[in-house]
């Protein structure tokens, strides 16, 4: 019932294609399969054995970045700046974090820092109501996001907020003016608390292909991203580019988004994720 076959060139090529189809990218897929070639080439193995070994190899690469996002309420508040390309799930992820921290007994507030997109503030306000978080909103549409962050953090330091989640407008990393705006938000936050932001969380959509590498590179250079959240993993996309990201940048992957409700956030687990890639 467990059919064995030789792990020959054809079989290794098949493995490489499995990894490429999971968005690991050509370079990372070739590297991993090369490792397999050295240790297991020519042996008689079942498909199950190969998959398990492959998942193991992937889990080994991912384990070092499977770290929880440290929150220190002692910062009063701990400031989490959420950034990322348009539509990747920043606002919804903030709602999920708000829900999670509230369940942990932490007092949260949100900053509706997307002062540009239609109904962005209202979207976060609804999530604030649902998760019991105060929402700092701009005085009017198009207000300066940095100014809002300044006021919100100043207030949060006096009202017992323990975690302040700052939402920002989606932006493409190749738009220098928008990336400069983000740097300005960080500078302004720093004027209120030089140790803030304490976490800079970059959201990545699991359906993203190789462009994720460029996204992480530029956001990291511009605003010193401290960790990643991979969203929409409840879909059919495998998110394999995370493996290439782990090898290239070594940034912690704190969370995975697995749905659209406030409870749909999980810690990133290397083994589970690796098994998902291998299918």
């Amino acid at each position, binding site marked *: 019932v467990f059919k064995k076959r030789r792990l020959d060139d054809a079989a290794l090529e098949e493995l490489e294609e499995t990894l490429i189809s999971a968005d690991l990218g050509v370079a990372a897929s070739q590297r991993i399969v090369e490792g397999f070639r050295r240790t297991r080439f020519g042996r008689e193995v079942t498909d199950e054995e190969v998959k398990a070994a492959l998942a193991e190899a992937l889990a080994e690469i991912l384990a070092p970045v499977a770290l929880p996002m440290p929150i220190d309420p002692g910062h009063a508040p701990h400031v989490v700046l959420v950034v990322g390309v348009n539509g990747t799930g920043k606002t919804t992820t903030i709602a999920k974090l708000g829900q999670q921290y509230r369940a942990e007994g932490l007092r949260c507030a949100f900053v509706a820092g997307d002062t540009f997109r239609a*109904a962005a503030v209202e979207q976060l306000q609804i999530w604030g109501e649902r998760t019991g978080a105060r929402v700092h909103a701009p005085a009017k549409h198009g207000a300066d996001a940095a100014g809002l962050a300044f006021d919100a953090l100043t207030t949060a330091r006096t009202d017992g907020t323990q975690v302040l989640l700052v939402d920002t407008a989606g932006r493409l990393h190749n738009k220098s003016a928008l990336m400069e705006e983000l740097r300005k938000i960080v500078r302004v936050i720093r004027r209120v608390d030089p140790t803030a932001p304490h976490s800079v969380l970059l959201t990545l959509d699991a359906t993203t292909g190789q*462009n994720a590498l460029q996204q992480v590179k530029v956001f990291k250079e511009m605003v010193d991203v401290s960790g990643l959240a991979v969203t929409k993993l409840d879909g059919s996309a495998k998110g394999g580019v995370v493996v290439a990201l782990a090898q290239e940048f070594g940034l912690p992957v704190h969370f995975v988004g697995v749905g659209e409700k406030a409870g749909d956030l999980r810690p990133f687990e290397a083994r589970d994720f690796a098994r998902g890639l291998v299918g």
Partner: protein
Amino acid sequence: ALSGKLTGVFDKLRRRGALTDADVAEALREVRVALLEADVALPVVRDLVAKVRDAAIGQAIIRGVNPAQQVVKLVHDQLVAALGGGLDDDGKRGISLEAAAPVAILMVGLQGSGKTTTSGKIALRLRNRDKKKVLLASLDVHRPAAQLQLETLAQQAGVTSLPIIAGQSPLQIAQRAMDLARRELFDVVLLDTAGRLAIDDALMAEVAAVKAATNPHETLLVVDAMTGQDAVQTATAFQEKVGVTGIVMTRIDGDARGGAALSMRAVTGAPIKLLGAGEKLDALEDFHPDRIAGRILG
């Protein structure tokens, strides 16, 4: 870029003298890697490389003065043909409105792909350029403030949006939109739907039911230019479960190579109609296969 890599391949091959099938195979391996790195899906890459191989052998490229350039041109031409520049391309790039008014256009796609913004953009173009009376309707009863988002965009575009009535199902909203459009003689109804996973059977059935009830002249699959290998699964599911007449690729103002465009076109057979090139409502462009082919090749 691909031409650089191929020049490298052919340079070292030329020193050996005549080119063999194996040499062409090596060049094609470079083409395959370039396309995969551009996010073209694996099965689509295989097909395209096979077509390039047939064309290359047919062209006796081996005796060429600059074989690298010739191969790049072959790949470029195959890409353009595959993307929709082929002999059967009628050049009609925009949205088809050739149906009895009110013409419905259904917008579908994964979460966050740009459906709502694109609905606003299409509305603006139909109103300003084509002088149409447009009704924008949000069937998204799920995402917080989604209906307000579309209502705001309608105001910016200077078009009417369907009044929001809480508690209605997407199907009820769609039917109300078509009723209003018929009564008040709208030319076009743009139906914005909630983002949904292609693997969510219930939600896919829901949008298929909306389609059956409204009989849209266009069903546009809105996809993000940075989509990777999953483009095939998503496109297949939307084509099989809903039926797609056109593709809109958004966020091409980013720096993603955009290989998903080729994957989606190949899998659905639907033409790529429009491109989203920015966040403002006027950032809507017609699709030109030449530009996207050049971008995929890098």
